[in-house]
């Protein structure tokens, strides 16, 4: 990300300098070469900067620290460090079952067509609520829709621990129901402790890897 931002900044600076040349010397465009220069500087370069900038911001918005930069999300970030393997989010984060630098996005995006766009639209709504409305208390924040097993199966489907796990195979009807999203991984009594931000004050926390 640091290299990308440096390159992008270099491109933005170079574009701004070239544009400034044309602003101060518009007569340069009288020649054919000047017209070609104007096309590159006033059309192509800004478009490239805009496209690269949009891509940069979208990638940056997937980072865990980006999500946790709003104070409403602080308890959710704290819940990733709970020292209890029964806490689903914490176990995933601490054992790197999800990329630690994109932990929120990995589970909370929709693995379907336009899922990323949907996640970004939700993010824009969160910014609107944060600045222009009264944000709910962290423990009152709810998902827009019930968590879909598809998001879990994106990684776990086909994994040996999932397909051959003792609890998963004890009932032959369980895995087909989970795969068909008829039995929720989270709310059917199996993996129901996820963030549980309301009970964090009594929790013990992992300090992190040395």
């Amino acid at each position, binding site marked *: 990300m640091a290299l990308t931002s440096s390159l992008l900044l270099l491109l*933005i600076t170079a574009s701004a300098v070239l544009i400034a040349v044309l602003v*101060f010397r*518009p007569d340069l465009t009288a020649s054919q070469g000047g017209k070609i220069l104007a096309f590159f500087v*006033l059309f192509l370069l800004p478009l490239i900067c805009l496209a690269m900038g*949009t891509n940069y911001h979208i990638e940056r918005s997937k980072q865990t620290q980006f999500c946790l930069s709003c104070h409403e999300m602080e308890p959710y970030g704290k819940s990733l460090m709970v020292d209890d393997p029964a806490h689903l989010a914490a176990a995933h984060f601490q054992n790197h079952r999800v990329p630690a630098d994109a932990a929120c996005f990995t589970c909370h995006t929709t693995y379907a067509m336009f899922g990323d766009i949907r996640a970004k639209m939700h993010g824009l709504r969160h910014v609107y609520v944060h600045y222009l409305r009264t944000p709910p208390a962290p423990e009152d924040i709810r998902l827009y829709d019930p968590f879909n097993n598809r998001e879990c199966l994106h990684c776990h489907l086909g994994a040996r621990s999932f397909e051959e796990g003792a609890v998963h195979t004890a009932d032959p009807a369980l895995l087909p129901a989970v795969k068909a999203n008829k039995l929720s991984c989270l709310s059917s009594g199996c993996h129901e402790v996820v963030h549980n931000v309301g009970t964090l004050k009594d929790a013990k926390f992992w300090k992190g890897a040395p």
Partner: protein
Amino acid sequence: MLSANPFERRLQFSGILLILGLFVEAVCLFWTRPIAFVLFLCVGGLLLALGILLFLFSLVGSHTPPAS
């Protein structure tokens, strides 16, 4: 500073809008808050889009007499 030639003047306005848009984009690069994304998209993106459109408009609007 602004040129008397209407075509060149439009180019200059377009350039000024683009520089402002690029400035907003550069500032948002260093601001790691969700509001930076919104500012980048709504302010920076709008200024850049207006600058590009004004440049395209200046091309369409410029009248060049046909070569004899």
